[in-house]
């Protein structure tokens, strides 16, 4: 187990390094700089501001300094938000994204697994077809369609829920964004669970459990379900990536003060340090979740542990 962790960390670090490098040079290759706004600064002042932040030095030197700073845990000052470091900006907005993402992940996991089991137990009956139809719709109808449509239905027309805003994370404000984020994941998870359950329900160990006279509910939950969950755990990494992309849309549609809302704006404003900070946080998050899902799979599946 420790060997696995060490090996995975060994590949995760170069990946993170690659991410930082690519994002750094991509951002600097963009025309313009953070100090060109609506109010044009006189060229002399602009040059001095640039020099203050060290942007007049050769790019490769700046890259070296940035890497050294990041290695010390310093992401630098924000270039657009006055008197705030990138750490402050991330801290203020990360919470909202985290609450959204975690709630969506939990909702998607519970709902997806339940639907998948139900569909597998009633294979090729109407309940199965219904779940699979929902799954197809969930995959085919993108977040940026479901979000405005649900707002139109539940907020504007029925007026059951607020149409936007964070309101300190009040439950009514959370329902729509979490539902929108969770929907595509529910679709994928229920498909994975259904396929896994159908396979494991047919296998010998389930037949043995039935033959021992165990109650149905125990056979399904204790014997058939765990092996069917392995693909779901493997999907944890991609699911996290999907939630991050979804949050870019959801935070915009629902005007939520999360990280995703800032990413596009900061990139457009050339707020180099904030964009870099976000890319690093996102990449680290995805890598960490991939590692976590590998560890859980190794714990669940003895065959993986051996190889």
């Amino acid at each position, binding site marked *: 187990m420790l060997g696995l962790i060490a090996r995975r960390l060994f*590949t*995760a670090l*170069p*990946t993170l390094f*690659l*991410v930082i490098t*690519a*994002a750094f040079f*991509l*951002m600097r*290759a*963009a*025309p313009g700089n953070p100090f060109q706004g609506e109010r044009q600064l006189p060229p002399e002042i602009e040059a001095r501001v640039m020099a203050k932040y060290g942007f007049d030095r050769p790019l490769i030197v700046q890259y070296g300094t940035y890497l050294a700073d990041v290695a010390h845990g310093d992401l630098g000052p924000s270039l657009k938000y006055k008197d705030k470091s990138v750490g402050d900006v991330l801290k203020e907005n990360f919470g909202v994204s985290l609450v959204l993402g975690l709630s969506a992940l939990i909702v998607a996991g519970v709902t997806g697994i339940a639907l998948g089991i139900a569909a597998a137990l009633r294979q090729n009956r109407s309940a199965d077809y219904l779940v699979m139809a929902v799954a*197809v*719709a969930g*995959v*085919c*109808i*993108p977040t*940026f*369609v479901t*979000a*405005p*449509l649900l*707002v*139109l239905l539940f907020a*504007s027309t029925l007026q059951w829920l607020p149409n936007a805003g964070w309101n300190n994370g009040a439950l009514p404000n959370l329902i729509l964004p979490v539902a929108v984020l969770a929907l595509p994941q529910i679709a994928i998870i229920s498909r994975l669970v259904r396929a896994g359950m159908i396979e494991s329900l047919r296998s010998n160990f389930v037949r043995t459990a039935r033959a021992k006279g165990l109650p149905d509910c125990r056979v399904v939950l204790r014997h058939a379900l765990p092996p069917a969950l392995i693909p779901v755990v493997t999907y944890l*990494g991609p699911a996290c*990536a999907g939630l*991050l*992309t979804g949050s*870019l*849309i959801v935070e*915009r*549609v629902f005007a939520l003060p999360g990280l995703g809302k800032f*990413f*596009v704006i900061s*990139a*457009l404003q050339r707020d180099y340090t904030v*964009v870099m900070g*976000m*890319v690093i946080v*996102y*990449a680290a998050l*995805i*890598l960490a979740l*991939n590692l976590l899902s590998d560890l859980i799979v190794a714990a669940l599946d003895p065959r993986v542990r051996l190889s």
Partner: protein
Amino acid sequence: MSRTAILLAAAAPRGRSLWDDARARLLGNRAAVAGLFVLALLFLAAVFGPALTPWRFDAVNKNDVWADPLTHGHILGADSLGRDLLARTLMGLRVSLAVGVVATFVSLVIGIAWGTTAGYVGGRVDEAMMRIVDVLFSLPFVFFVILLMVAFGSSIVLMFLAIGAVEWLTMARIVRGQTRALKSREFVEAARAAGLTAHQIVLRHIVPNLLGPVVVYVTLTIPGVILAESFLSFLGLGVRPPMASLGSLIANGAQDMELAPWLLIDPALIMAATLMSFNFIGDGLRDALDPKDR
């Protein structure tokens, strides 16, 4: 000698190729056939539709602002600038489908080149090439595509390249796996014995045999690409107005949905129909071409 050959040819039953079988199975799949039918209609509409509508997609009509459907000669109504929604939706469909097909082609070329090389050469090269794919796979690619579009401005060509460059990874994995399996087959050995170069073997004997899984994956990649393009357009980074794609139409429609919900609903329906058709066809093709599920 020639007599026996003729006799043999006459006696041999007419063989059914893999493709005949697959076609029969595909046509027996109702969802896939419906998908093919809808998709054919959508393609025809995208190709010929914009020329047939009475309005141009970018024509601004001051008198028709927010026109309801079926008024002022606008079948689907008009938007905040009085532009005909039907013309814009057809144009948007054309752009989205074009992006889907072209970017998928880019990913196909890169993926096949990468995958066959890794799979055929094998050994250290294979390991290094697939490790690169693994590393790229775990990158938050959306953010790089966004950065790319922000850095170099949103041009359609760049979008083709950026999305295609992201989507080739899975293709490369599939192709590599197939190549490795094919490499040890007798006909490849025969080709090698006949003195063909590695280049010739890959192009003439391996690539044609990859077609099945590649076709399946292509039909599943195109909707992914259309989604990616629409995602960018929704964030305001895709096609530039007055050009339209399904994503930009949905984004505009979402802004005006309280006043004119059809501006959101119509393009969203077209988008859902497009994606669903591709997915049904892809699933159908997979069932038809995968001998395991027979």
